[in-house]
């Protein structure tokens, strides 16, 4: 102990942060078992008395979230309806710049997630970054992985930092459901392309003569899963039925989400939201989808997908949302060197995938135990759960799956069940059902919610999990940065 702690004494007080940083990796060694306890008692207002280690790994750089912001999430077709996706993304980026005051030229790379791509700005990350005034020397790319696109943007950044390629990354996501690309039919497209290539008038006329009125029927972006042709709401309804989740349970859960979101909004806990002055409109300052209703009101709604007897309704599903988020991720030593006080570490993460037909939305169930095992944690170690709420029925089905030995044995190859996340630690500031779910942007919101909750409520570990179209899922451990 003495040998190891000796150098600290000689350090100038200015580099206090570096001290804390360097002590953490050491805590793994057996002689120092007591050290972390000491550290936590000192620096965290942790209520728990149990021993917790940090998740730093030897020889791998620690990745921290300096801060993250998002535009208010709005119901699609409201204030953002005349914007383009890169406008929203730009708003998130300028908000991040403002919040963190990061010098633009320090940013090594920008990654954004998006799902329904605007054809004109297919690399929306680049368009938004240029517009937001980032250096034109900073490369940017766009990723897509359905509802976990922003998660993919973040973990891509984590990979770049951990492997030493970059030090400073901006990751984010954007979705604008108010406007989606609606295409001409394939036949019409083919005709138009052929017309382009036609050389003589005769060729053109003969092509035009092939035109039929049904060519004009437009092609809408697919709302259904490509592999199964089933819409997600339909699948969620079946999933709820498979796990015998009742309509009442779903409505109750949705009500909880809205109530908690309302409370968080009123108490000013949703600190990641940055105001956005929409051109030609008023400044938007808060999410507009939070509408706590009553169970009686909700019970009146008709099923939205499986008619007339299904259980998934408009009130217990997440709604189409416009919004963008952005996050500043750095290598820990870089953040400290720049004088930042990071909010959280991004630790182990895990992607899973399963049957897109019958287990489309069970990603969290599969990803949670895997990421916990990888990190050497248990359910009890987690202080803040932030799960993406696509549908009430989906969350409750995941709960039942995690609580079922039978499911664990037969479908997950586990001996025992995963275990249920305690509800009092679960999505305490609302979730996608109430705050909204801009597909490409939700991932960053989840991580920021976990980080902010850990700071506010106290606690060391947060677990973020989400399901996504294609039967995929994601989970990540967020570790609070010592205060």
């Amino acid at each position, binding site marked *: 102990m003495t040998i190891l702690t000796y150098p600290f004494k000689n350090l100038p007080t200015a580099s206090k942060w570096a001290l804390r940083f360097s002590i953490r990796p050491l805590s793994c060694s057996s002689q120092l078992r007591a050290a972390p306890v000491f550290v936590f008692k000192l620096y965290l207002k942790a209520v728990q008395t149990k021993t917790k280690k940090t998740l730093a790994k030897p020889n791998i750089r620690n990745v921290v979230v300096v801060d993250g912001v998002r535009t208010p999430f709005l119901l699609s077709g409201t204030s953002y309806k005349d914007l383009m996706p890169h406008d929203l993304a730009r708003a998130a980026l300028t908000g991040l710049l403002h919040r963190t005051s990061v010098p633009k030229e320090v940013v090594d790379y920008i990654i954004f997630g998006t799902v329904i791509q605007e054809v004109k700005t297919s690399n929306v990350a680049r368009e938004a970054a240029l517009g937001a005034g980032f250096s034109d020397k900073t490369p940017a790319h766009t990723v897509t992985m359905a509802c976990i696109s922003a998660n993919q943007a973040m973990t891509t950044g984590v990979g770049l930092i951990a492997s030493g390629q970059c030090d400073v990354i901006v990751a984010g996501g954007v979705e604008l459901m108010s406007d989606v690309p609606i295409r001409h039919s394939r036949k019409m497209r083919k005709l138009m392309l052929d017309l382009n290539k036609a050389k003589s008038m005769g060729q053109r006329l003969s092509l035009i003569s092939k035109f039929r009125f049904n060519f004009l029927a437009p092609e809408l972006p697919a709302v259904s899963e490509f592999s199964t042709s089933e819409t997600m709401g339909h699948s969620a309804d079946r*999933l709820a039925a*498979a*796990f*015998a989740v009742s309509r009442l349970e779903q409505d109750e859960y949705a009500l909880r989400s809205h109530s908690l979101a309302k409370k968080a909004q009123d108490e000013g806990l949703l600190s990641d939201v940055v105001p956005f002055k929409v051109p030609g409109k008023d400044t938007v300052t808060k999410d507009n989808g939070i509408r706590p209703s009553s169970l009686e009101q909700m019970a009146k709604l008709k099923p939205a997908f499986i008619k007339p007897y299904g259980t998934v309704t408009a009130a217990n599903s997440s709604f189409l949302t416009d919004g963008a988020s952005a996050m500043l991720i750095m290598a820990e030593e870089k953040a400290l060197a720049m004088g930042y006080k990071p909010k959280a570490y991004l630790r182990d993460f895990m992607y899973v995938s399963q*049957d897109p037909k019958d287990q489309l939305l069970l990603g969290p169930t599969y990803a949670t135990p895997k990421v916990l095992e990888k990190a050497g944690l248990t359910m009890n170690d987690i202080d803040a759960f932030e799960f993406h709420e696509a549908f009430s029925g989906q969350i409750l089905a995941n709960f039942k*799956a995690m609580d079922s030995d039978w499911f664990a044995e037969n479908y997950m190859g586990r001996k025992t069940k995963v275990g249920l996340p305690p509800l009092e630690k679960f999505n305490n500031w609302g979730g996608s059902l109430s705050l909204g779910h801009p597909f490409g942007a939700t991932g960053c919101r989840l991580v920021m919610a976990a980080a902010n909750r850990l700071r506010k409520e106290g606690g060391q570990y947060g677990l973020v999990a989400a399901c996504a179209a294609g039967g995929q899922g994601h989970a990540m451990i967020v570790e609070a940065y010592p205060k």
Partner: protein
Amino acid sequence: MVACRAIGILSRFSAFRILRSRGYICRNFTGSSALLKPILTMESKGMWQLFELTLPIQSMLAACKTLQEVTQLSQEAQRIVEKLEKSTKPIVAAINGSCLGGGLEVAISCQYRIATKDRKTVLGTPEVLLGALPGAGGTQRLPKMVGVPAALDMMLTGRSIRADRAKKMGLVDQLVEPLGPGLKPPEERTIEYLEEVAITFAKGLADKKISPKRDKGLVEKLTAYAMTIPFVRQQVYKKVEEKVRKQTKGLYPAPLKIIDVVKTGIEQGSDAGYLCESQKFGELVMTKESKALMGLYHGQVLCKKNKFGAPQKDVKHLAILGAGLMGAGIAQVSVDKGLKTILKDATLTALDRGQQQVFKGLNDKVKKKALTSFERDSIFSNLTGQLDYQGFEKADMVIEAVFEDLSLKHRVLKEVEAVIPDHCIFASNTSALPISEIAAVSKRPEKVIGMHYFSPVDKMQLLEIITTEKTSKDTSASAVAVGLKQGKVIIVVKDGPGFYTTRCLAPMMSEVIRILQEGVDPKKLDSLTTSFGFPVGAATLVDEVGVDVAKHVAEDLGKVFGERFGGGNPELLTQMVSKGFLGRKSGKGFYIYQEGVKRKDLNSDMDSILASLKLPPKSEVSSDEDIQFRLVTRFVNEAVMCLQEGILATPAEGDIGAVFGLGFPPCLGGPFRFVDLYGAQKIVDRLKKYEAAYGKQFTPCQLLADHANSPNKKFYQ
């Protein structure tokens, strides 16, 4: 290969559907009180009722000996079902799986029907395929429910209707999507969920919150209105009757009776309709046709089992040599069952064509909405096309479908044996080459077996498996298991020239040539054979098989069997081949074939060939009926001889092989059933009459003669 090519056309024949409908469910006639009981107990349970409409199949009417008994059973069933219909408490039918025949009749007597939208869930009235009619009120209720045209279509074709289609037709009121895994096995939970949904609907019905009446579309309303006009109805009956007569050629009595019963119900009221239904049901069940068709049904069930038991090692990796019509066909029916399949050919062009054939076969299913384009792609990825033997070291079975040439087959066998693992089975798809001759060059003859597929492989259900004396039991078990996986109906026969199917066809073909030589017009011959019940005319059959193939087989088998396979002069075929008249594939044979032209014209160039080989007809054996019987008796005689020689193990397999593989008239039930029903004595008499005119080719075989001598002897006891 002879037979393979011939039969493509057969599947168009509607009566063949019998063989396609799986999981056949009939009413439980033998214990009608047993049916009554569960219904009553359920009634006492509450306002909702639910039963899974999969009543166990009984050897349906085996117990009934007389017409009265059968009629009585039908009436009893009608009464039970009526009880359901008249119930004051709402009854909801919850349907999961096959709801066919009696099951459907129970379902349509309920106030409401809810079905799972599963591929397994099908509804239908397949009675017609057994030569009977829906005898528990189905003929009366169905027209009221879905309209006369749709009801007649269902009852006359016996087709199985998928749940989503049934919903559109108004046959079911609600659909329930099958569920995935939850807290219980998916199937179990799906049924539970179906029940839950059914209960909510029954409650809704009881509280009058849900109306059992369905909103009809405009077209439906118009049809319904049109059917109220007597003149229109008469026209509909007339049209349908005409069509049925044309298709059945008067060989199948059931369809006409079904129309009759439906007509009676509509024109004279339901009481008359129910009475008529039960009577006609009784009459039909007692017909020979019905017995023949039921026999086929039972035979088919038998041929869907693996009598060798489970193989030691499941075949998971399959390799097919030769990407021709057969090879690609075999690949198609394998990949869609999840077998990893290698398709190998020697040239890229041949391989391309074969892969395209598989893709097209799958894509056609997408067009018919039987598959999604995504499923097609994932199925297609099970297929690997290649020109070399890479990956053969993992193959569990190799099926060769190369050209019918012994030395070529020997070569590939040796090549393949050099690369395959020890447990791998080598199967040869040949229609006439004896398997033991192919196996002669094998290092491990116990692993060599014959698998004779019929073309087009994806449509023809039969697979003839040929075992040699050296073939091991486990090899046979594996081959049968693969065939069953591919959805085939399987007969297992012993090795010998022409095995069973080709051997039966050959003498009949020889007779075809003689009849043509005697100056019978090919068109006339075709109409004679089809009116006897063959789905394809005899002259057309030669064209379909390919004249060159027919010539090969005639020469090969002629050499082995000698005079018995004589009759027509093979010179006719030789001359046709030399002129390039190879049948459909070359555009000319007895007929002229043109792309996109349906009408077939006689090939006038054949006149000179036929004239040069003309034989004087023998008037005493040249009546229309005699011509038909000359063809059929030679076929039957050869089939019986195959049983006598032990090529065939059972008469049931012989019947299935003849009907499914060669298009033997289904209404006759196959050669053995035909002997039983028509009478062995009468057939022997016919044979003797023709023997007197033509000699040895018609000599009845010993077994047939035995049957004729002792009238109690039957192939089916």
